[in-house]
Structures are given as C-alpha cells and as structure tokens.
C-alpha cells in the first residue's frame, strides 16, 4: 500500500512533529485534522489506544503514536492535534500528534526507501525518508502504525 510511485510523480505529505522529529503522513489517507479534545477512555484495551472521541456524531477511536512507538507519553499543548485517518483495513482512526507543520510535495526522487530488513523496532513504522528544504522527514507507514500489537 505504501508502494511509492514511479519516477517523476509527486506525493503530498502532511508534516507533523513528534518530539523533535518530523514525520510525514501521505495526504491521501487524511480525512480531517481536529484540535485536541476530551477523549473518553475505553477500559481494558492496549495503552496506546487512548479512547474514543465524538467527531460530528460519529464515535472514532484515537490512538497515540508516541506510545505505540515507545516514545514519552503525549503532553497536551496548544498545538496538539488529532489527525483523522481513513484506512481501508481499519476504518477511521484518529492519531495524536504534537504539532501539524505544513504540507510538502515531494518528487519521488526526493524519497529514499528504507530497506525492509531493517531490524530497528522504531524504523519499522517508516516506509521511507523524504528530503526537502526543511531537512529530513520520516515518512510513516500508516498500516504498521495502526496495526494492533500482537
């Protein structure tokens, strides 16, 4: 699904911040970006599942990428946002990010793929690294981000 396109084509990413690192999320999976709001906790689920929110009458689960990736737990600030993703396999899911920065358009030759045999746990959430003026952007592989822990 994260197969990147042929040379010459471009992909748009929304750049988000988690801690000091910049991550990119393919714009085609993004349904909406909302401000942080009260999350209703759901008992007896994995810690990274923060709970559910009400998005215009729909109940949507929200997860923390930070906890999933083994980073420090989220600290809610003014710039904290929930990005609502629409994924074929998992339906609609919200993910919490520290900050939404901008939208970048990357040529395919600006994207460096990551070899699949990477052993590093954290890297397995990435599908590539993008290079642009603002520095390096780690491109998130959303499927493995939202995939349930075994």
């Amino acid at each position, binding site marked *: 699904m994260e197969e990147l396109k042929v040379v010459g084509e471009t992909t748009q990413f929304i750049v988000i911040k988690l801690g000091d690192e910049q991550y990119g999320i393919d714009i085609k999976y993004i349904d909406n970006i909302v401000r942080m709001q009260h999350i*209703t906790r759901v*008992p*007896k689920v*994995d810690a990274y*599942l923060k709970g559910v929110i*009400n998005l215009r009458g729909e*109940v949507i689960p929200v997860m923390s990428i930070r906890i999933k990736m083994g980073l420090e737990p989220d600290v809610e600030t003014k710039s904290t946002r929930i990005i609502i993703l629409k994924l074929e396999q998992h339906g609609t899911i919200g993910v919490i990010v520290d900050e939404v920065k901008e939208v970048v358009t990357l040529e395919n030759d600006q994207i460096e793929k990551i070899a699949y045999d990477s052993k590093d746990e954290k890297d397995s959430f990435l599908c590539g690294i993008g290079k642009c003026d603002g520095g390096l952007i780690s491109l998130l592989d959303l499927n493995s981000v939202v995939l349930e822990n075994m």
Partner: protein
Amino acid sequence: MDVSQYLEIFLDESNEHLQNLNTQILSLEQEPDNMDTINEIFRAAHSLKGMAGTMGYKRMQNLTHDMENVFSEVRNGNITVKAYMIDVLFQCLDALEEYTANIRENADEGTNDNEPLIKQLNEILEGAGDEDGADAAAAPAAEEEAPAAAPAADVGDRKWLEIKLGDSERTVLKEALKQSKGVYGLTVKVQESCILKAARAFLVFKAIEETSEIIMSNPSAQDIEDEKFDLDFSLIVVSDASLEQVLSAARGVSEIEDVIGDEVDPNQSEAPAQEQHKAEPSKEEQAQKPEEHPAEQPAPVAVATAPAVASSAKAPTKGKKKGDEKKPATGKPVVNRTVRVDIEKLDTLMNLVSELIIAKNSLVSASAVSGTSSTAVNEQIEYLESVTTSLHESVMKVRMVPIESTVSKFPRMVRDLQKSLGKKMELYMSGEETELDRTVVDEIGDPLMHLLRNSADHGLESAEVRKERGKPEVGSIFLEAYQDGNNVVIEVRDDGNGIDTEAVRNKAIEKGIITPEQAENMSEKDSVDLLFHAGFSTAKVVSDVSGRGVGLDVVKSKIEALSGEVEVKTKLGEGSSWIIRLPLTLAIIQALMVDIGNEKYAISLGSIQTIEDISPQDVKLVQAKEVIQLRDLVIPLIRLNEILDIESKKDSSENLVVVVVKKGDKLAGLVVDELIGQQEIVIKSLGRYISKCKIISGATVLGDGEVALILDANTLI
C-alpha cells in the same frame, strides 16, 4: 430493454410467491378439496411464470408453466390431489428456489433443466386422462379456452382469438358490455420493412388508447415494448367508439400493414368450463359450485361489481378475504397501499433521527448549563422531546416486520424432516405476527431452523419409544413468539426426551472439553451450556439433519450478534425448550446514566431490575466474593470501578449505590458511584478497531458532545 433494474423486485416477489406456494400446497395436502387454496396456488404459479418469462428466465418459466398446467387441471377437477403429486410439487418448489438462488447470486438461472421433474409433472397430467377419460377431452379445451370458444375453428389472421382471458379480464369485459361499451379483438400487422417495430406498436397503442382501454395484449405489453414479437400483435380492447373507429385509428399509424378486428363476447369464452360441468353429472352439486367460481373469484373490487351469479353469495366473501391478504396477482384495479422501500433508505432515515435526538439532548444540556432557561424554553424543549420520541418510534415501526416471513417456511421443513427422520411430528406455531426489526428477522431464520431440526432429530423420540413412555405417538414441536417488554421472545419447545445432562457431560469429557473432575461439580445448567460449546454434538450417528456439531454454537453466536440471548430449560423425559430473547430495537435505547469516578457510563434500562441503596455493613462475603442479600435472594456484587480500572470517588464507609441487573434468571449488583438519570441514547459502534473490550457494547454521544460508553450487563454477569 434492460431488466436488471427489476431484478431485486423480481427476486423479492418470487420469494414471496414461492413462500406462498409452500404454505398453500401444505394446506392443500391437509384439505385436498379446498378450492380457495387451489385457486391461490394457481394464481401464485401463474404470476411466477409471468415474472420469470418477463425477466427472460426460460427454464424457470418452463417449470412453472408445467406446474401451472397441473394446478389448472386440479382446479378444473380433472386431477385429484394425491400424496405423490404433493411430493413432486414440493420438489418443483425446491427447484424453483434453486433457480432464484442462482439468479440472486449471479443473475443467471443456471443450467439445470429439471427435466425429470417436468416429466413427472407431465405424467401427472397424463394420469388425469387415464383416470377420467371424459374429462381429459375437456381438459385441453378448458386450458385454451379462447380458441375453443371461437366459433370459427381456424384462427388465421384473427390472432386475437388466441388471447387467453384471465378471470379478472373477463369480469372487466362483462362489465363493459353491461355499460354497452364495445369489446373488440384486434390484430395489428406491421409492415415487413418496418425497422422500429416497438415504436410503431407504441404509436398504435397510443392511437387506440385515445378512444379505448386496452385490456390485454398478446404478446404482453412488456414484450411488445422489447420488440419481442414477430410481425403482428393482438389486443383486446374496451371502447366507447365503434369498431370501425378503433380500426381506422390504428390504421392511421404509418408502416402498419393492416388492422383487422371483430367484436368479442367474453361470455362465450367461458362456455367450455361450464359445459364441462354439465358433462359431469356424477359429481355432486356441492363440488360444482366452487368450481364454477374461479371466474368470479379474482380481485375483490372486481367481485363486488361482477354480475351476480346464482351461487356467488358464498364465494365473494371468501375471495375477498383471501384477496385482501394475499394480493391477487391477476387483480387489475386493486390499489396496493404499501410501498417497497430499500432498507438502506430506512437506515439513512434512522441515522438522521439519531442525529436529531443527539441535537435535542445537546439543546437540553445547553439550556441547563446556560441558566437562561425560562418556562417557555423548557416547554418547547419538552415538546421537542415528545416529538423526537414519537418520530423515533414511528421510524422503528416502519422497520418492523412480522416474523411470519421467516417462520412460514418451517411447516414445510418439518414435513420434510418427518419423512427423512421417519418420526411422526407436528409443528404448532403461534405469534407469527410478532414484529421485529427487519434486519433481525432476516438473521433469525437460520438459528431457528437449527433449533427446530435439533428438536426434531435429538429431542423427539421415535414413535415406539414414545408409545412405551405413554406419550402420544406424534411428537409435538412448538414455535411460539411473543413480546415481553422491550424484548421479543421466541421459544422452540418439544415434548421429546429432554436433554440428558449425564450424556452431555460424558461426551464433553470424551471430547476433552472438560475434565472428569470438572464434570462432577457441574450444575445441570452448566452441563446444558456445554451444548453451545463449539464442536459439540451428541448425536451418535451423523445424520443429514443435524449432528455435525456446528449447530448450537452457531445459533448462540448468531443470536448474541443480534444482542440477544439463548436460554435452555429441560426436563429429562419430558422435553426441552429453547428460549431466544431479542431486543426490540437495536439503534436507540433507554438507558440509565451512571457516574463511576470521573467517567460516565450507560446501562441499558432493559437489563436493570432495581436500584438499591446498600450500607457497607450489609455486604457479606461468600467464597471470598462480595454478595448482598435482597428480599431472600443472594446477589453477587460487581464493583464496576475495579473492573473498569477507575478510582472511585466515594469513601468506603459511604452507602453503596447498587444497580441490580438481570440476565435470564441470574442477577448481579453493579456498584456505581452515582446515578445521573434516565436518558434516550443512540448506540454507536466502537468500530472494528476497538473490539477487544467485551464489557463495552458500544458508545453514545451525550448532549454536551462527550462520548459515554455503554456497559454490556450480560457479559458482566
């Protein structure tokens, strides 16, 4: 023309007709002389044939055609109903069901010609000849009434004579004659060079319709529209104008070679049927009367205006009753006061109502928070509240259908089981009119079928054993449905052997489901519950009826998926009953909102028995578990804050608020911090992503926009 847009309707109606046929043939078996039933069967078979033909399903059409022939003979009294015939007819219905199933799946009827069945049908037809030689001669005449009735034997160009008049058409024609209108038969020939035949035919129709009403056409109007005719087509029309005027109107259309026509006497075409009765003096008068009647029986409206025939006094009332509930297929001017609605549209409507209720709840809490609430505002809010509640109820009612559509196939199934199992049994059904949400009704069929088969196969003993035990030889299975508060209860009961819990336990040990030690301490109830364990089957021999061990656990999971529950009551030697409890509504429920710590939870009002205020001293320990005693009942306590990992706000010395919930016969006390109040809530799914949490059955959006979770009391007990 593309018929695919009609596919859904076709399938729906075919199923309806098939169901109807099943029921009617079954009752025909009971009373082979009931003319109402035979007529009803004939009508259903006829409509089915017509529909299959229109949709281009030739094989289906052929089979129904032959079935119709048989019914037609039965109707004319040339064949008497026999057990063999009923069997063949049931097989035909199965074959038809197969066709429709094929069509549903791949829009194609499949390639099975069912020739053996058609042969059997024809044999039955021929059998009529052997049985009653005199009638056999009359039979073909009766079947093709019109040609026989024609004074001139050669039809030639006057092809309208080939049109077979249905009962209702004939009534209409007679009525027209009475009003001194002209009844004409027309045959229109189109020029060979004509390219757009259908368009020309349409113009002819239009020209004729200016002065007349077209009663029938051959081929059907649909076929003509689809250009499914050769070079001519025939019409029967009723007109105020003279024959000449009608003819010239039709001839006025270009590319029409010729139009010929003549007056038609509808009474004449009826003649052979009556003659036939005269030729049968041996038959009793009683039998004759209803037989004459088919012509008078169609659509109730037609009956009311039909010329009174000597013996019509009884028939119209009967016809009316049947007609009203079964929608006569040939009925012409009957106004059908129902509308078929796509279930998706209803779902959308339901969602909108849900949104409205959420908006209403927001308004209520907004006015409470802002403190601006005046009496006027409150009054309006209360009014809004009552409107939304009744709106919700109406929409729910629209989605409700009687379970009849699902259960009406069971008598047939039990009849088949009786033959295949070699046991005598009778199915008694009651409460078929009980209504449930459409989606539930669709889903409940399979579980019920499993339970009925189970009762028939495992429950009922063989006739010999029954005799020995002093029970009537014929076993009884009961299927009862009724509404109980916010639930609908469907009970499958039999007077068979009951469940041998000992055998169940032994089997479970054998299968490795439980250990012998566990078995010893098992209560009767727990043993019975073993039956619902996946991969469990007590049948010693696997029969094709049941015993594959996939039955009961599927039944249970299916019913639980519908938020219902199954309960078993059994007494060895006396029978068992399986009780299915289903919630009336799925989407919106009345719930009690409670506070636990800083979180709000909803508990369905349907499962709540009472609410108690208990002092901490009254909490006793039994086997290290907390219980309370309430009016002679010992009820286990469940501290929700512990289960849900919440810090309770309350001090341990304070009185406990206990919500007593019920699941079947079991009770449990849920300890909450505080009660908030009763509220109508809209159930929203938590989604596939959070499905691990069993104790939460869903979520709801509260008035202030916050999400509250709905506790599933059933899983807590």
